[in-house]
Every structure is written in C-alpha cells, then in structure tokens.
C-alpha cells in the first residue's frame, strides 16, 4: 500500500492535530509577519481621522460570543481610535449579547483616555426589532430609547440628550456577524437618512459587502480577524488580532497543502480506475 492509498483512508483526527499545532506553535513562537493594509480598512481609518472632535459615532455591536474572536479585537481597536480622536461613542446592539460585549471593550479602553460615561460615551443596550427598529430610530430616538443598558433614564445623560435622530449621528460603525446587521443599517437606515456606514464583519460576510463598497453605500470594511489586525496596526495597538496573524498564515498554508494533497489523491484514484 503506497502513501496515496493510505491517504484515502486517513483518520481525520490526525488532520485535527495538525491544525491545532499550526495554531498553537506560531502563538508560542511568533514569526512577526508584517500586516499589510488594504484599501477598505484604510477608508474606515481615514473617515474617523477626518471627523472633528466631539462628533458622535454610533457603534452598533451586532454580534454574539460565537463571533467574538473575530469582532471583539476590531471593537477595541475602533473604540481606541474614537477615544483618541475625542469622538463621542453612542453604543447599542441589534443582537442581545452585543452591548454586553461592547461594554467589556468600553471598560477596557475608556479609562485609558479618562472618558466619562454619559458625557463621552453611552451604551443604550439591546434594541430588538431589526430593520423596523432602525427606521424608527433614525426618525425619533426618544420613541425607542428611554433608558441606557443599566436602566438610567436616557434624558439624565448629556450624550443621551444629544442624540435625537439620525441627523445627530455623524458615522455608524456596525460590528456585524449576520442578520440583523450591516445589511439592515445600509438598506433601512443609511438609505433613508443618509448617515455614512462603516463596518467590521466576520470573514464569512466580507465578500457580500463588496457590492456596497463599490456603490459607496459602505465607506469601508474591516473583514474578519485580518481586518481587525490591519486596524490595530493603523491605530498602533498591536493586540490579539495582530498576534493571531502568524497562526492564520500558517494554517492557511496548511489547508492549501491539504487541498493539493486531496486533489493528488483524486488524480491517483482516477488513474487507478
């Protein structure tokens, strides 16, 4: 029995071990591959850079723990950028776990810049209703938002009073893992009210955003963990996303090797017949 015959009956758990090692080893022994910056990410960065101090950025945390590994680093990097530029952050979420995850990021980043809750940033919590809620929110925030995520009356907070409708929002950044998410922000909010939308999505969703980038309905895109790593590089905050890039590179090479090997087995089987 030659090697290709053995490969036909391969126990996939051996593949699992290879994948695990390909992830673990570069984390333990970093290679330090440089992270290149792509245009869609740079556009997000440039837009935030161009916003005047005090501008209000809506950060919509539209993901749950299942996508935390890809989108949480982007959340922290984006918040770091906003606070460094003295922008005001109005956080919310279309997914139930989103605002809590966003709050964890706020608690990490806001104290570094001495930001005050209620003045420099606010978290209004989970907003159910998806697209219908977005249409309603853009017209009159007070109809839907009475308290923040902790139950504090929204009118008692300066930033809560400052946001009355879409007109008061200078940019929306949606960190999106599916539905409801970026698609609804574009179609139901931006199309109606004209607010510019930027997004960080899971890598699975990234290819679907390119038609919106091309039509300028999206100003920029952070796709997956690589997008987060690019943003971390731009804001000079080398954290979890950058640390994961070596592993990402090695595993991808490994999987390409698996694909080539699998096709060699296919050719071998065809020849055998």
């Amino acid at each position: 029995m030659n090697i290709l015959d053995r490969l036909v009956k391969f126990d996939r758990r051996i593949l699992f071990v290879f994948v695990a090692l390909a992830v673990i080893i570069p984390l333990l022994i970093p290679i330090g591959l440089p992270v290149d910056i792509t245009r869609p990410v740079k556009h997000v960065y440039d837009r935030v850079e161009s916003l005047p101090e005090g501008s209000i950025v809506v950060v919509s945390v539209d993901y749950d723990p299942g996508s935390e590994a890809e989108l949480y680093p982007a959340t922290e990097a984006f918040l770091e950028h906003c606070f460094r530029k003295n922008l005001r952050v109005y956080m919310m979420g279309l997914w139930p776990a989103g605002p809590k995850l966003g709050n964890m990021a706020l608690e990490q980043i806001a104290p570094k810049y001495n930001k005050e809750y209620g003045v420099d940033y606010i978290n209004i919590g989970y907003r159910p209703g998806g697209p219908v809620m977005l249409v309603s929110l853009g017209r009159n925030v007070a109809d839907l938002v009475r308290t923040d995520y902790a139950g504090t009356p929204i009118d008692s907070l300066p930033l809560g009073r400052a946001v009355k409708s879409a007109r008061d929002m200078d940019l929306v950044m949606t960190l999106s893992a599916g539905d409801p998410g970026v698609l609804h922000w574009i179609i139901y909010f931006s199309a109606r009210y004209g607010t510019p939308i930027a997004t960080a999505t899971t890598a699975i969703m990234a290819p679907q955003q390119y038609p919106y980038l091309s039509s300028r309905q999206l100003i920029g895109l952070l796709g997956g963990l690589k997008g987060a790593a690019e943003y971390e590089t731009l804001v000079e905050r080398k954290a979890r996303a950058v640390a994961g890039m070596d592993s990402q590179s090695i595993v991808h090479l490994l999987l390409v090797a698996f694909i080539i090997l699998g096709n060699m087995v296919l050719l071998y089987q065809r020849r055998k017949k």
Partner: protein
Amino acid sequence: MKRTLPIVIVFACGFFMIIAFFIPLRGFQDVSQTLQNWYIGVIAFFVFIGIFNLVKVNVDKIQRRLRDWQYNVILLIFLAIMMIAGFVGRPGGGVFLYLFENFHIPLGATMFSLLAFFVASAAFRAFRARTPEATLLLIAAVLVMIGRVPIGYYIWHGFPDLVEWIMTVPNTAAKRGILFGADLGLISMALRVLLGIERSYMGGGKE
C-alpha cells in the same frame, strides 16, 4: 373572521405604511411611527414564546424519560439560574455578569470554533477539482486564502492587490447579480403577503 381578520390586518398595516412613506403629513408619519414601535413591542413576545417552548419541550422530554433526558435537566437548571440571577440581581452585575463572562462567552465562542477542524477535514476530503468550474472555484479560494493573510504579502507584494481585484470585480459582479435576483424575489413575496395571496406564515388548519 378567523381567516378574514388577519388578512385585513396585513393588508391595512402594510399598505398604510407604504402610502405613509409618500405622504409627508405629520399625522401619517406619526401613525406610521406608532405602528413601527408597536411592531418592536410585539416582536419581543416572539422571543418569550420561544423560550416558553424551549422549556415545554425539555420538560416533556424529562417527563417521558426519553434518551439522554438527564442533559435536559442540566439545560433547565442553567436556564433557571441565569434568569433568577438576572431578574433578582439585575443584568448589571454580580452573578449574571459572571455567568455571561465565564459560561456564555467561552461556550458560544468554542462551539463555533469547532468548525475550523471540520473545514480542514473538508479541504482534504471534499474540495476536489472534478470539473472546470470546480477548478476555477478552487483556484479563487486558494488565491484568497493566501493573499488575504500576511504570508501572502510576504510571498509577493502584489498578492493583496490581486485578491482585492478579485473581490472588487468578479466577486462584486456575481454577488450583485445574485442580489438583484434575491431582492426581486423578496419584493414579489412581500407583495404576495400583503395582498393575502401568500398565507403559509399564518400556520396550517382549515379555519
């Protein structure tokens, strides 16, 4: 009544909302906004009924001692703990947050990360260039997989630009075409629902 009233509701609400979009008068806009706000209120109950059904299904499994019923007990225990922690202690802190950070987040994140291993297995076993179309798909996938990570840039500085072109041109073109088709289908379905032609969402029965 049981069939007519729901159809009247869907027609009236739907077409009022469409008409209100084109009439900028305050009254129309206020009613439209009210309907949207009520929609969100009603949607919340969809979640509560979902959780109620979850409890009902699990209790039923436990009562009938079906296979692996013991795990359903664990499910209900943790559901109860989470709800008690939240409703008694409030979602802001303490036990609820602890459970969220040390149970919900790691379990959710790990559950989805399992797929990484199965993708690797699929890459070896299933991703085969059997036809010219499959070969094209495979080539595009390999180019993206290498070009979208730092090693791609390291191998050849032009790799990321090549991948960006693939995403911006052929990918955009195909996705846009699919998008048009899907949207036209969705709009025609929406019209069928508003006109009462499509009623499958109402549930079965002869009434």
